[in-house]
């Protein structure tokens, strides 16, 4: 899109700002390549023992071996499924409760202290409870995922509802808009950017808790595969799976951003980003 500008001999774009000599995506790739080279060289040079941190190439070949097994793909699906179900529940509950609690000031005042008490409880601390309730099944991890990402969404929705222009709200009220119409025409458009932020934060947190649950509880998924590899002393496989989890994290973040952009195309914050 900047083909014409690139020809500019001064290396400046239309606004006269200096563009960096190397595009940012190239720098990103260079950074990754550097990390890979480091992960290859450090064990090769004997700085750490290969049997505890194998060279990067060993991890890649272990990853290739993994990719040829059914168990790997099943685990990947199980992880994605747990993440998606957990996030969907957290989103639905967070948005509905957020709008209800945020929209009724006395309710909000009554619940603030409760929310502030429950929110900081780390999900991981609920592992014993989850195991007692659901054993080592997927549901116990789901509980952790929903608990952690729900607060991310709820808090954002509460902020969003609070941000509604009082004049618009009063106007809607004096025109006797029905509550659902008020939510649709007044509250939702204001809250949507916040909801999307909650979605992005929740998506990342949900993945962290999904993997943690699988790793610690042993519910099915990539986390459990990592634990099995660890218990089998299959060190390169373990690191290979860790790399996969990292890649999923990157994809989840990119996908959440894409959804956010699409849902907020009309919003000034996104429009400005696209223009610049």
């Amino acid at each position, binding site marked *: 899109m900047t083909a014409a500008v690139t020809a500019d001999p001064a290396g400046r774009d239309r606004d006269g700002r200096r563009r960096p000599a190397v595009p940012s995506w190239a720098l990103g790739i260079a950074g990754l390549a550097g990390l890979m080279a480091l992960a290859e060289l450090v064990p090769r040079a004997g700085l750490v023992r290969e049997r505890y941190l194998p060279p990067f190439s060993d991890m890649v070949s272990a990853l290739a071996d993994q990719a040829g097994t059914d168990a790997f793909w099943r685990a990947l*699906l199980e992880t994605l499924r747990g993440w998606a*179900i957990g996030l*969907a529940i957290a989103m639905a509950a967070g948005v509905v409760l957020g709008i209800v609690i945020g929209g009724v000031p006395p309710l909000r005042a009554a619940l603030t202290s409760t929310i502030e008490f429950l929110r900081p409880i780390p999900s991981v601390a609920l592992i014993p409870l989850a195991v007692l309730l659901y*054993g080592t099944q997927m549901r116990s991890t789901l509980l952790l995922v929903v608990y952690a990402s729900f607060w991310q969404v709820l808090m954002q929705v509460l902020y969003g509802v609070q941000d509604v222009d009082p004049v618009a709200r009063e106007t809607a009220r004096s025109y006797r808009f029905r509550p659902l119409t008020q939510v649709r025409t007044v509250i939702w458009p204001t809250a949507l950017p916040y909801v999307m932020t909650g979605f992005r934060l929740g998506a990342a947190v949900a993945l962290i808790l999904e993997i943690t649950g699988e790793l610690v*509880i042993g519910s099915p998924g990539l986390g*459990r595969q990592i634990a099995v590899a660890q218990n089998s002393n*299959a060190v390169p496989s373990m690191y290979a799976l860790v790399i996969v989890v990292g890649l999923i994290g990157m994809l989840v973040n990119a996908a959440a951003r894409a959804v956010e952009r*699409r*849902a907020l195309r009309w919003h000034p914050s996104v429009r400005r980003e696209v223009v610049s």
Partner: protein
Amino acid sequence: MIKVRAALAAASLLLLAACGGGGGGDASGDGPTTVKVSVIPIVDVAPIYLGNQQGFFTEQGLRLQIETAQGGAAIVPAVVSGQVDFGFSNLTSLILGASKGIPLKVVAPGAGSTGVQRKDFGGVLVKAGSPIRTAKDLAGKRVAVNTLNNINDTTVRASIRAAGGDPKSVKFTELAFPDMLAALDKGNVDAVQVVEPFLATGLKNGARLVASNYVDTAPNLTIAGYFTSQKTVASKPELVKKFTAAMQKSLKYASDHPDAVRKVLGTYTKIDPSVAGSLTLPTYPAQVNAAGLQTLANLAVQDGLVKSAPDLKNLQP
């Protein structure tokens, strides 16, 4: 409205992904009874995977559903609350549970010591150049075990005692099995109590075996077993009988076919095939060694894990 559509699209995408691998609920009725068993994915539980492969559970009209947990700590609650029908655990954990009044019952043995000095599936390793030569030298040293106040520290103390050392002065540190060899290498601990595949790996990397702690404790010690709750014993006697029968057949088969055991390891662990071919397998005994169980209970009392030994009659099959 575009934004509503986008939000809907995102939501439906999530739901779609959510529904992706669902379904497959169990059909109750005349078909096979589903039996849920919670195990730790280690060498000890190879017979249940092997027996399932050989159809020993189907023969009994059971459809086996194996769930894996990361440790015994998650298994006992799951069995007691009825989340799963049976669980796998070492016997000391079950003795501790029983002495705390948790109603448990062993229904089949799981894995046992080979009973052969220096050729067991678990043991105490030290670094190649360590001054520690025998279990007696462990007194006053730092020894890593995977769980404090459980079977591994009490049996290491038994080793020291048998060698004429002072078991009270040994300092135990809790470390997960996968972290032990690295900790030994770095000198964070003086000795580690490991089981396969870490024992074979450690020996291959130059560590030295100083004690076979399970062998020192009692002859032909049964280490672990499959258990259920007394409630299940009372309410589903048929299920318990069938499971025990299938388990017995699986243990026998595993005992007679060590090569099949080594092969089945590849299906539920990621142990390197070359290691799986050379590691020392535990025995898969036909019954729980009663004398050994009594010894473990006595050690639990002696080392202060419990105040008084539980009535082992209720625990035993």
